[in-house]
């Protein structure tokens, strides 16, 4: 993951060396510590490395980790191998939020994040709340209702989105590229806002990883083992959908990572969530960062949408793993 980050920072249209990166890092560290820095880095290189590449590489790590983790969590919670981070409508809510921000030209940016990301985040949160409300009765959340409510709300929101797209006129392109997902717009404020949220949620999920194994047992069995299954489900759903909302708001709808990375890791390392979860997080972060590198350098000077690369690279690799292990694959 660290390697992927460094390579991601190193590679780009402007030629930079590893030393440049090191120097920029040192210089910024010195500056932060109020030391007198005498390091010489070409101004243009410093600008590019510091303002574009660092935030971009960091964001792909964060989003990759978040999506893989929440994919892993949702697959366990729903006991469904097809579940992914977007299954309860987070992406549709965020997309609709983004569309509203783009078409109405809203300016409600907070914490330095642009208005599209801000409204997308609100859209995602509102969707999650609505879906949970629909699926819960007497304080308990029914997983099946949640799945159904999520899918239906998604369909409804997509329809509203389509209507907005018809009327969006000149702004349509912004929306389309947002829907494809990518990191080219990411700057420091995104990192400083998203990092604490995603990292703290990830830590919570990791600490509770043991319980995910129990969720895969029947409810009765889990109850015998002293776990309040409904409480656990709730905690995981909230954490999972929350980090997904943050990730989607920052980078648009990047598909595939959340669905397939947990499966890849399951095939390679087995179904124990204490290992599966951290390994999925690392793999998701590395995979997405790697895909972002490919997106940038595949056909210069054109930049491809990263979601396309994740699917193009990830799908065949996953199929290969599935083919190799088809006899022993258990969910």
């Amino acid at each position, binding site marked *: 993951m660290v390697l992927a980050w460094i390579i991601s920072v190193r590679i780009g*249209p402007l030629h930079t060396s590893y030393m440049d990166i090191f120097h920029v890092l040192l210089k910024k560290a010195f500056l932060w510590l109020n030391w007198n820095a005498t390091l010489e880095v070409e101004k243009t290189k410093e*600008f590019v490395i510091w303002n574009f*590449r660092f935030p971009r590489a960091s964001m792909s790590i964060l989003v990759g980790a978040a999506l893989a983790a929440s994919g892993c969590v949702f697959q366990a919670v729903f006991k469904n191998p097809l579940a992914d981070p977007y299954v309860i409508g987070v992406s549709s809510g965020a997309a609709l939020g983004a569309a509203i921000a783009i078409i109405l030209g809203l*300016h409600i940016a907070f914490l330095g994040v642009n208005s599209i990301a801000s409204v997308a985040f609100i859209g995602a949160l509102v969707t999650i709340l609505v879906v949970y409300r629909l699926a819960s009765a007497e304080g308990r959340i029914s997983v099946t209702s949640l799945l159904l409510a999520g899918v239906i709300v998604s369909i409804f929101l997509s329809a509203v989105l389509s209507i907005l797209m018809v009327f969006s006129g000149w702004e349509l392109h*912004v929306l389309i590229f947002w829907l494809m997902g990518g990191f080219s717009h990411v700057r420091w404020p995104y990192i400083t806002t998203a990092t604490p949220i995603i990292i703290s949620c990830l830590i919570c999920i990791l600490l509770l990883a043991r319980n995910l194994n129990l969720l895969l047992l029947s409810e009765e069995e889990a109850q015998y083992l002293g776990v309040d299954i409904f409480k656990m489900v709730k905690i995981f759903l909230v954490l999972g959908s929350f980090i997904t909302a943050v990730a989607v708001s920052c980078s648009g709808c990047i598909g595939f990572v959340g669905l397939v990375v947990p499966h890849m890791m399951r095939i390679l390392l087995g179904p124990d969530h204490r290992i599966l979860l951290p390994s999925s997080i690392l793999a998701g972060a590395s995979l997405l960062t790697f895909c972002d590198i490919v997106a940038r350098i595949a056909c210069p*000077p054109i*930049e491809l949408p990263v979601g396309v690369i994740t699917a193009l690279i990830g799908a065949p690799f996953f199929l290969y793993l599935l083919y190799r292990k088809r006899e022993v694959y258990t969910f």
Partner: protein
Amino acid sequence: MRPPQKLPALLFLLTLCLSIIQLAPITSAIAQSFPVTITDDAGRTITIQSEPQRIVSLSPSLTETLFALGLGDKVVGVTQYCDYPPEVKTLVEQGKITIIGGYTTPNVEIIIGLNPDLVLGHKLMGEDNLKALEDAGITVLVFEPEDIDGIYSQIERIGKATGKEEDATSLINAMKARIDAVKQKVSVVSEKVRVVQMCWLEPIWVSGGKTFINAAIEAAGGINVFSDTITGWATVSPETVIEADPDVIIYTSMGLTVSPDEVKEKIRELFGPTKAVQNDRVYLLIGDAASMLERSGPGIVDGIETLAKIFYPSLYGGRAPTVITERVVSLIRPGAGYTQEQVKAIQEAKRILTQEGDVEEAYTKLVEAGVISIQIKSIAESNPVYQKLIELYGENLERYPTLEGRIQLLYAMGLFEIKV
């Protein structure tokens, strides 16, 4: 002595010439003989039996061409994106022209309902729509110009199809002359300006080779840094632009949702280290100023002239404004002595002239604001002074150094109205 300044009010000049032609004994128009046979860009050979009287245009560039050929009164349908010349919008509001949808999504039923005898479309209109119109017995010509020569050919064929062959020829010749004039002028530069042209920032969407903007940049003596590496349009990362380090950044937009200053600030933030940002050579072309470069119509010439002014200020006697919203860019700024109100009055007079063509109103505005102090009475046509004025300024009015002076002259010559 300073050489006469090449003033940019070419639209103005053209309309003036038209007015003068109207004053002179009109040569009888030679009626063009129909039927005519035309091959369109879909490779179809179409015969038009008689002069079309009800024309529908399915793209903004075709609408512009029709109006430039003086066929505005025969246009009965346009797309929702057709906004130039400004009278299109007025005619739509008056109900004389009907909106038939978008240019990729024309509503065939509305078009058929308009009972047109000629429909001009772009290839993007789609084969199904084309077939539906043909099945309804409507003559359709499909165009898809790929370069400036393609625009000439499009104008020529539209002229032929509508009995305006002569107008088409003179329009094409005027365009060629103006482009040649620009090429001639910029040929003296030793180092060409390197340009990045973009129309979006989220994501950054730049033009490469095989686009009209690229052709315009080249004609104006610039180099589009992506002309070899990108065909058409593509997204690039900000650092690609920084690495290319252009001298000039051109940002075009059909309409902004934020203020031009915000866009400039964003561009400065994104491309800080480039020469364009460092030397404050970031130019925003908005609305009409963007469409002239993006459409395959006669406006491309205005675009080329504007770009040349942006690229080589020293050849054009001054820096172009960094935010351009009109097709004709005036480098003449009101003199230093004017008050705020007077500057406003001059801008208003200019607007009245170019949009309404009402010389009298513009003149009155300037007199009221005290910009024009010596009031001139209009001169009779029989007066030798009038003849002298026509001789001196008829075709060269653009050489007159100030806008106020030009309005005064027009007024004196009894041209109270310019047919815009």
